[in-house]
């Protein structure tokens, strides 16, 4: 079931078209990645979903119906540029932000207690925000984003500025939230996290959505038909054997054996390859190498940029 849908959203600023008929469909209880270069339009789309600005054309559907003002209580938003009031006390501020999202004071306090204990921040309740380290402030910001158990969570560049430990913590929490039933949308440049977390992605470049789909599918689409072969044997012999049909992309020596990346070509079959090598090599493993999201990102964006440039 589609939980969040943007249909042909258009956003025009004075001299710049930020979103050009962008559509996305976020399935319920999935982790959806919104990718794209800087300035592509991701933050604009996110702001429209959060009702911070409105679209010039198109609409946003929340849980099957048009987005309404009080949906803000069902959405949790962690913006890219995040800040807190420096001179305000931590506990007081967290309570204020929680209540802005519609929680009663009593509920907010209860939930804050839970989260503060989970992140070991209890002793900081009465301190001013400016006394906290950056990592702690990030934890607070995360807490106020998820406190009201929103159905939809939106994270804009959540990992930027996080050290590896906190980044890992954040990843775990996002997975936890998915387990509890939330739908999560996050925009990022951190392709590693995309591979680890996302079920679906959309790639936006220059105001247009140019790539959609479940991650596996996308990687399949862009695969170079590479296989990785781990074997023990004579590497030169391999090169010889492969010369006719297959192309040896990479050869690596690892401890006592080798690892080769072999381009299969469009028509190549793994069975055939295996057949031709069985007699001469001890094969440890053979698997398809799917391109990394990073590679796909670069490839697709470059392609799209080339297409939009006039042909010489």
């Amino acid at each position, binding site marked *: 079931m589609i939980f969040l849908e943007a249909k042909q959203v258009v956003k025009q600023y004075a001299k710049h078209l930020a979103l050009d008929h962008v559509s996305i469909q976020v399935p319920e209880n999935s982790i959806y990645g919104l990718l794209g270069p800087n300035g592509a339009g991701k933050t604009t789309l996110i702001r429209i979903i959060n009702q911070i600005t409105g679209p010039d054309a198109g609409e946003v559907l929340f849980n099957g119906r048009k987005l309404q003002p009080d949906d*803000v209580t069902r959405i949790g938003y962690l913006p890219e540029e995040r800040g807190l009031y420096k001179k305000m006390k931590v506990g007081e501020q967290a309570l204020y932000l929680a209540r802005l999202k519609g929680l009663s004071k009593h509920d907010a306090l209860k939930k804050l207690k839970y989260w503060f204990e989970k992140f070991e921040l209890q002793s900081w309740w009465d301190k001013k925000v400016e006394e906290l380290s950056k990592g702690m402030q990030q934890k607070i910001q995360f807490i106020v984003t998820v406190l009201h158990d929103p159905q939809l969570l939106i994270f804009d560049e959540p990992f930027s500025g996080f050290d590896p430990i906190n980044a890992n913590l954040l990843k775990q929490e996002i997975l936890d939230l998915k387990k509890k039933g939330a739908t999560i949308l996050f925009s990022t440049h951190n392709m590693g996290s995309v591979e680890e977390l996302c079920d679906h992605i959309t790639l936006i470049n220059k105001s247009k959505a140019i790539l959609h789909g479940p991650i596996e599918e996308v990687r399949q689409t862009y695969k170079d038909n590479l296989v990785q072969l781990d074997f023990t044997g004579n590497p030169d012999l391999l090169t010889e054997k492969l010369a006719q049909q297959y192309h040896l992309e990479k050869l690596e020596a690892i401890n006592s054996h080798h690892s080769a990346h072999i381009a299969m070509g469009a028509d190549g079959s793994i069975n055939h390859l295996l057949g031709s090598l069985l007699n001469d090599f001890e094969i440890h493993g053979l698997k398809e190498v799917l391109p990394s999201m990073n590679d796909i990102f670069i490839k697709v964006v470059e392609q799209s940029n080339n297409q939009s440039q006039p042909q010489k």
Partner: protein
Amino acid sequence: MSIVGPLLFAAMMVLPAWFASMDDQAEKKIAVVDHTGKYLNAIEDTEYFKFSWLANNNQSDIEDTYQDKGFAAYLVITDDLQKKSDAVTIYSDVQITIDVKQHIARQLEKFIEQERLNSYNIDGLDEIIKNIHNVDVDVSIITLGDDGSQKESFAEVTMIAAIVFAMLVYFFVLMYGTQVMRGVIEEKTNRIVEVIVSSIRPFQLMMGKIIGIAMVALTQFLLWVVFTVVLIFGVKTVFFGNEEMPTRMDGQIEMMQSANGELSQDQTAEFAETFQKILEKTKGLDLIGSLVAFIFYFLGGYLLYAGLFAALGAALDNETDSQQFVMPVMMPLILSIYVAMAAMRNPDGDIAFWFSMIPFTSPIVMMARIPFQPPVWEIALSMTLLAGSFVFTTWFAGRIYRTGILMYGKKVSYKELWKWFLYSKK
């Protein structure tokens, strides 16, 4: 600030006078050479200047040796001052200050006046002169009410009240208006605005801030009023006890002395007299009415300007950019003070009338007119206009605010601001 504020004001008025009166000088001896011989001992010594008439009326004698003899300067009178009024010169190696010059001139003038009087040879002339000058006319002012009532008022007090009210409105509007601006800028620079705006509309955020700061301002004002009242009653009780304040000067002096034997007789008498006069005169003012008017005009003026300050804050990225945009907003406020001063001399004139109607200047100018009790319809009209305008400026500012708070790094010009105003959100 609430407690310290009034103390600071009091200090500001007392300290400069105190410093001026402080004496920080050493004794100086001045030699006098009088060629005419007429002005012997005409100049009285002061606490710091001692004049010595030289027996030998020869300038050349003293010219080079005055310092060795311990004199700081020497004065030479060359001719009869009634014939030649500039025939007196003071020579010194250090710069002679104004007070020395004035003292010498005044003393010599007095001496000559006395000489002239004496030349008429009238008996008892001195007494006659003293009696002539011993006059103190005190004009009472009575304002006629429409209902035939008569109320005594005091020009000085109304003037002071006008100034005080005008300045208070000016300071409060400025202080709290800029606080709004700074708050907006802070939210913008630390980026919390985006989180908040995902929960509420920008207009709500702006109004919340404006109203919140208005509450702070009102609280501070009330604290000052309470503090001042307490202070006045405190002084009254300390110096006059719980008894009815005596109207006779002697009685006052007696009480002062018994209450606090440390102050000198003159000082306490003066203080008591002035204090009582002030209290009496302020009864002529409609204090409650003025306070109500003050609260209205302060709130109205503040709300009018606060919206504009909020819009400014939204347009700017940091405080250093702010100066060039803040000036145009502050101009009407500053102008108001000047107009208010003119209004105090002519409270019912055209300038006073028009500027107490124009919403940007009316808070200050009308407050300056209030002690002079302008017609009620004028006050009502002015208040209505002010109320209408602040609704308008708040709406206008709100549209600039909601676009501006999420814009960063854009070079802001008036054209840009106008575009933000026009930009409508669906």
